[in-house]
């Protein structure tokens, strides 16, 4: 049994914090511990930031944050129609050196914090980042 929640957010920087608060509250209600809530919050916020950064042509357009809660996990998809990008061009940020580069950190952080991450991007259409976090079984 799962519950589905859908948010539609204008692609503006000032609303990323609002999504962060909403997702924290949702993950907390779903029974995740403080550290997992923080991981989910950061990952979703990074996905939203990605939309806002890369969706420049039409910032007014909304993107969707769809959440599915239940069955011991939370699944969150951040879906935009901002034109997509070529995933083949994504390069893991170079961090193990004395001169790290700006940028490219967002997807890297999402992958590090969530249990499963799937990214679909279609050039000319948009991008979907689907993330799953499981409730830890004690």
């Amino acid at each position: 049994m799962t519950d589905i929640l859908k948010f539609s957010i204008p692609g503006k920087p000032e609303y990323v914090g609002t999504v962060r608060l909403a997702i924290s509250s949702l993950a907390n209600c779903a029974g995740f511990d403080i550290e997992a809530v923080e991981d989910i919050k950061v990952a979703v916020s990074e996905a939203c930031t990605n939309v806002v950064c890369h969706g420049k042509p039409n910032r007014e357009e909304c993107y969707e944050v769809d959440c599915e809660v239940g069955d011991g996990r939370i699944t969150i998809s951040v879906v935009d129609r901002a034109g997509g990008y070529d995933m083949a061009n994504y390069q893991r940020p170079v961090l193990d050196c004395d001169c790290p580069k700006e940028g490219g950190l967002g997807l890297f952080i999402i992958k590090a914090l969530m249990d499963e991450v799937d990214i679909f991007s279609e050039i000319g259409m948009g991008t979907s980042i689907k993330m799953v976090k499981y409730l830890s079984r004690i």
Partner: protein
Amino acid sequence: MSLQLQSSYNNELDQWELTAKGEVDISTAPQLRKYLDGAYQEKKADILLLLDELNYIDSTGLGVIIGAFGRMQESENRIKLVNPRDNIKKLLSITSLDRILCSDC
């Protein structure tokens, strides 16, 4: 969900001491960039970023700090993060930025 910044120059230690309170994300990162650049342009010296009261930083905020780190490297100055909270320590560790930006975190 805002960011408050305060800076002062420590003449004894020849360094900037900049306190960041609140959250650094895509909406507030430009404010941090402007502040860091402003201080460094006024006086080229090391910058200590005091993070005791910073609740949140994301990749855009880390990007701003990396950018400042790169620009300061040319004149052999450093930017150091002091007292980050556990959630921020985790991000710094994941990204390996703790190795270059922290001396004690």
